[in-house]
């Protein structure tokens, strides 16, 4: 049981990292982090970006579930 969830967690973690990196970065880093210029959001997101969002959310949910499940399993074992 622990092994299954560990493998699931490893896979979803790696997938999650790749997916987040595939997103187009928003915001200009540190310069507009603290009292910088007002960043204007230009238009909506594209279809590809929206699908990417959906996949990322799905992976994140799987990731969170396996984290919680593993935590509980370690506690009981």
């Amino acid at each position, binding site marked *: 049981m622990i092994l299954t969830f560990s493998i699931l*967690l490893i896979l979803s973690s*790696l997938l999650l990292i790749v997916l987040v990196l595939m*997103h187009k970065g*928003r915001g*200009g880093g540190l310069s507009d982090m*603290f009292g910088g210029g007002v960043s204007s*959001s230009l238009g909506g997101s594209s279809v590809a970006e929206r699908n990417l969002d959906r996949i990322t959310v799905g992976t*994140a949910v799987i990731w969170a579930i396996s*984290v919680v499940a593993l935590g509980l399993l370690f506690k009981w074992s």
Partner: protein
Amino acid sequence: MLSAFVNAFKTPDLRKKILFVLFILVLFRMGSVLPAPGVDVENVRFCLNAATTGENANSVFSLLNVFSGGALLQLTVFALGIMPYITASIILQLLTVVIPRLEALKKEGQSGQTKITQYTRYLTLGLAVLQGAGIVAMARSGALFGNQCARDLLVDTDSVSLFLLIVLVMVAGTAIIMWFGELITDRGVGNGMSLLIFTQIIATFPGTMWLIKEQKGWGTFAIVTGVGLAVVAAVIFIEQAQRRIPVQYARRMVGRKMFGGSSTYIPLKVNQAGVIPVIFASSLMYLPALAAQFNQGEGWSTWVTENFVQGDHPLYMVTFFLLIVFFTYFYVSITFNPKEVADNMKKYGGFIPGIRAGRPTEQYLGYVLSRITFPGSLYLGLVALIPLLAFMLIDANQNFPFGGTTLLIMVGVGLDTVKQIESQLQQRNYEGFLK
């Protein structure tokens, strides 16, 4: 003030954005208390209690811990917080001065900036791997709480695969945090990353205040609150202060349309650099302490531990202050380029009354900027020293909640977010928060 809140929630567009931000922040906080798998929660909690309430609280990680909202020492999923992103941004910001290719990218404008952001994201994950491995390794050997706590922090301290699993989970957590920040910037109000830092700082706030009350009693608690409020007022006063340099635009015809003819101003803030110099300086001050931690017992490391780890040493304060003043000038020179502003003004037919366009304007702007930055840098340095001085005076906890850095970030982010909400409100002709 209250009616502005009602208005903000009456506008469907804005209401959606605010609720979205709140939703993300709730998810973020939940991740910050969810322990990583394989961490022995009870032992960690025991050690944490011993470390924070004990006399010699570990101060090396205090800044890191503040930025992660207490998540770091609890070894949660989001233990690394936004610190890797901040460090990566600082590194890239410094590298733009050194590496010509990055400088060229920065001058390219929007597309170049996107590329730099992408580099920052890659570097963030790289740093997350390093920091995560470091922290989990320390937890494994028991050095996370300064060898004061004998209990095992992990379920199995010998297993290499468990070690790798925890590091991987923390790195994935950092990736999620990064994504959260971008989502907020993209679809919510305010800047995502700074709002996340804000949340983490606020989260530890009540706990630290209560700790002061528990340790010192109501008297000190009242003094601390009073001093804190006074400092907040002072910070807002300087934060909002700006010099307005008048600019007159010549009226001109393009085709059949009339352009320009208006008079505006260039706002030069007293504290143009914001809170970034303080973050730069504290990250730098943290390095020698970290190096000493790894090389205990040698001559130079005992010297460092004696002079640079304790915030109440005069040498530490002077170095900290000078670093902040230096970085304020450095950062202002990076972000505000008088030549660029002067050229832009000339292109659109603008001029400062009494000063010729072109080079004289550039010199004038540089002159005003360097003089206005001087009090700004002194103010930043003094505010950052407040917690150290207060620590000495009332002998309060090391994690003094009104620490200069945290205070500046709180006020800065708060003002910025309110301003953005207000500008959205004004698009629909409602009265804003700030009168």
